[in-house]
């Protein structure tokens, strides 16, 4: 069936992987600064981990497929097409929202206001990542408005998995740990389509 010599994720060169990792690094750095400004506190960042993993493993990374997580999803348009997702455990999301709003939340569910704050956090973090990608590649990238969903990790991760599913059985996950007085851990999942992979590589001189 593999009659076309298209680049699958597995075959992507180590260099490209390094590039995405470096963009992840810079992006996470920018995101940390943005987050720190937004929350008005000092936020430290660990070195992001970039991993290519099987769909099956992805759920377990986040604490099991049934772990409640908050996913913030943006569609990316412009010179490249694809999507980006920022995902974190529900408790992490709640901690960030509480910090941002400066008050404890009531009840199990997020209020409209809290959801809106969560979207904004996702917007800032993914925006920082996309900015570093755009700056490095000189490509124009427009993110959509953020969409938010709180549900089981398996169900939320199936969204980027399906997008990757068209080209591979694996997906690229960038784990970023922010540290503050509480631990804030999150994952980016960037899914450029095939054409965009080529554009990113080309823009970077490969």
């Amino acid at each position, binding site marked *: *069936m593999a009659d076309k010599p298209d680049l699958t994720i597995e075959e992507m060169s180590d260099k490209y992987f390094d590039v995405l990792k470096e963009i992840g690094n810079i992006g996470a750095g920018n995101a940390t600064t943005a987050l720190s400004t937004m929350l008005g506190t000092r936020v430290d960042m660990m070195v992001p981990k970039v991993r290519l993993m099987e769909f099956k493993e992805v759920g377990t990374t986040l604490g099991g497929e049934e772990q409640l997580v908050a996913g913030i999803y943006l569609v990316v348009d412009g010179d490249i097409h694809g999507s980006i997702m920022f995902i974190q455990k529900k408790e992490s999301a709640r901690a960030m929202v509480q910090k941002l709003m400066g008050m404890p939340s009531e009840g199990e569910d997020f209020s409209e206001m809290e959801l809106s704050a969560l979207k904004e956090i996702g917007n800032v973090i993914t925006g920082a990542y996309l900015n570093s990608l755009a700056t490095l590649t000189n490509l124009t990238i427009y993110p959509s408005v953020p969409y938010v969903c709180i*549900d*089981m990790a*398996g169900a939320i991760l*199936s969204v980027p998995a*399906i997008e990757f599913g068209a*080209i591979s059985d694996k997906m690229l996950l960038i784990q970023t740990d922010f540290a503050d007085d509480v631990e804030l851990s999150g994952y980016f999942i960037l899914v450029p389509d095939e054409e965009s992979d080529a554009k990113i590589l080309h823009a970077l001189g490969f």
Partner: protein
Amino acid sequence: MPETIKVGIADLNVCTPPNLITTIGLGSCVGIAIRDKQNKIGGLVHVMLPSSKEVKSNGNPAKFADTGIPELVRRLEKMGAIRSRMVAKIAGGATMFAFNSKSELSGIGDRNVAATKQTLKEMNIPILAEDTGANYGRTVTFDPETGDYEVKAVGKPLKVI
């Protein structure tokens, strides 16, 4: 001691009583449970995409509705199940994010459900029950003994279809 067999994303397996078979966190994906109602041989497939013909990376039949269902049926037949006695129940196909863009992904849940129904129809396997669509994830467990298909969702009462 009955076991619960776990099926991952883009994966399938078969099961006989007293064991159960489950798949966790179905989002836009669809979980199709098929069972021979007479000899109680059952199975579950967790498909991600509607059609293997639309994409290049199609080495894994369990990833697609149009190949995953025939593959599951083949595995069931190998265990002694008879096609004409098979019945199906389906769950999943949610729309997790309410985006309005022209992204191919919008409506993938609906497309997965449509492709599932189409494939089952072509194979003459009747659908006894479904719990599809909406905007939340589902964990499903199938009992080949009774044919009960249990659907769990966050913040919702347990449903048996």
